[in-house]
């Protein structure tokens, strides 16, 4: 065994990590512990008195049909967003990888949507799909679709899924393209000589070889759909109609700041916090592993 190097104890290392520790304490540990504490309280509607109730907020959530419905919707929403944005990004990256001329131009253009703020992305889609003045409802009318996401919950859900997926394509595209470009060219050429056409080469070689990236993106996209889509939903549907697009993170906001049920809202955010922790653990345990070859 190698001898470990010993440095004389001094204050310096503690000073150097202090800023990071302070930031974490102030902006994460403190609010998180406040949320946990708050989730054990019930306030009256006027904020005059609070009562410590242990897990009553949580047991109530476990039986609340609206909350459980929102849970199911969130999972459906996340699966759709992840699948749509990842498959679109995969196709785009597959084509961008084959291009030689003008590759940087295409790449730059495809990355742009990522620079759009979520609320603005939502606003764009609201205008495009506005039932009275949007271009898409006008076009959809020709094929017999009566579009009104203010009234039709399924259409509202579809709209936020598209908007959220569209925004994430650029991010996924970047990772997929980088993964594809790290595959040795000669490997693909060997497959071509072996007689595999472009589609076959993609499914037999490129797709399996970028599977670590796919898994990584799956976790990232799930986290994105769970937590970062608040802005889009707030701008497009505000959780409506009739809660059809109220996913968990939107319900936290709605119950807390609109419904003023601070304890219930805190309990929901504590549940979400544990979900994030679980996903992060999954990511570190399995994704950080190196590619198998």
């Amino acid at each position, binding site marked *: 065994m190698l001898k470990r190097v010993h440095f004389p104890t001094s204050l310096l290392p503690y000073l150097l990590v202090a800023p990071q520790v302070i930031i974490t304490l102030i902006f994460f540990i403190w609010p998180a512990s406040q949320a946990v504490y708050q989730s054990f309280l019930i306030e009256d509607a006027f904020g005059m008195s609070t009562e410590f109730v242990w897990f009553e907020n949580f047991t109530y959530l476990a039986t609340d049909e609206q909350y459980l419905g929102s849970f199911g919707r969130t999972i459906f929403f996340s699966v759709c967003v992840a699948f749509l944005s990842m498959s679109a990004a995969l196709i785009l990256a597959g084509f961008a990888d084959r291009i030689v001329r003008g590759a940087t131009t295409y790449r730059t253009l495809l990355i742009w949507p990522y620079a759009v703020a979520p609320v603005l992305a939502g606003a764009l889609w609201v205008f495009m799909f506005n039932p009275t003045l949007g271009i898409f409802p006008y076009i959809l009318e020709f094929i017999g679709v009566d579009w009104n996401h203010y009234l039709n919950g399924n259409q509202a859900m579809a709209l936020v899924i598209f908007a959220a997926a569209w925004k994430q394509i650029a991010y996924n595209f970047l990772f997929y393209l980088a993964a594809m470009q790290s595959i040795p060219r000669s490997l693909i*050429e*060997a*497959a*071509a*000589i072996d007689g*595999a056409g472009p589609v076959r080469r993609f499914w037999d*070689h490129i797709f399996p*070889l970028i599977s670590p990236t796919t898994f990584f993106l799956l976790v990232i996209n799930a986290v994105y759909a769970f937590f970062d889509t608040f802005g889009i939903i707030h701008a497009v549907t505000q959780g409506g109609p009739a809660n059809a697009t109220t996913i968990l993170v939107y319900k936290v906001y709605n119950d807390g700041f609109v419904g003023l049920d601070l304890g219930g809202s805190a309990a929901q955010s504590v549940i979400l916090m544990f979900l994030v922790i679980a996903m992060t653990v999954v990511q570190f345990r399995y994704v950080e592993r190196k590619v*198998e*070859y």
Partner: protein
Amino acid sequence: MASITMKDLVKAYGNVEVLHHVAGEIEDGELIVIVGPSGCGKSTLLRMIAGLETITSGDVKIGDKIVNDLEPAERDIAMVFQNYALYPHMSVRENMAYGLKIRKIAKDEIEQRVQEAADILEIREYLDRKPRQLSGGQRQRVAMGRAIVRNPQVFLFDEPLSNLDAKLRVQMRLEIRKLQQRLGVTSIYVTHDQVEAMTLGDRLMVLNGGYVEQFGTPIELYNRPATLFVAGFIGSPSMNFLPATADSGILKFGKAASIPSANHAAGAVTLGIRPEHLVHDDAGPIKITVQMSEHLGANTLIHGVLEGTDTDFVASMLGHVTADPGSTMSFSALTENLHIFDAASGKRIEG
């Protein structure tokens, strides 16, 4: 099995021509080595034959079919890459079977052909391993196995041994040669290593700067190099060159030294003499100021300069020869071992 014909092949990237009108015929069952320094276009030429690079102009014929516009898969070729290009996510067996599977060959026939190839290459016990669990030499064998199971008309080798250590390289070189002779498949082998080229090839095509310098058997290239470049490239240690003036059968060089020659050349020439053709002769016309000697065991390399000039000179003597730095040694050479090249064009002047 098939012959390959290259007719007036040109490769250009935009306005930059990198291969200039390459032509040559490769007979059925022959092993041709394309050799040249890096950047000479040898890999590009191979990739054009494989169909991995487009052909700017000219024709490539495999058998009697022009294949210019065919996909690599349709040319009935197999290629061994420098980095082996094995599929990392597939086992050795799957790697070898992949090309056959795509051609929709029956399962038991695939298995039989993979087993046969594995026996030939002695990789039977590795069939279920992944490429990353193999050593460099074993990967090289798998890459060759993947080529031979397909039973193609042509093998293409793109510097297949350059990632191996020296000892393994010599061993694999012999094996490639044996395998090629046994299967009788027309092969093109690209390398920058002249020893590999000399030992492997039925014929060598020496490329330099996109031009074919010479295309012939190893012995032809050694005995009668067509240009200064070939003369310097083939043979190790490489040929000595001295500026000389030819005048009615006498070559004058260095400081008032001269040697008779049977060549009719006149005027400024470059005289080439291989180090191993120099004979120690105290009355010889070639006088060398010794700088250092290298003892290789079987022979001794004496490095020095031509007396009174700064032209580098190497002589290879059999056995152990002692030569003190600073001393002068004299050599002579047989007339038929003198190579005379035009000083301006570098082309060989035939006697």
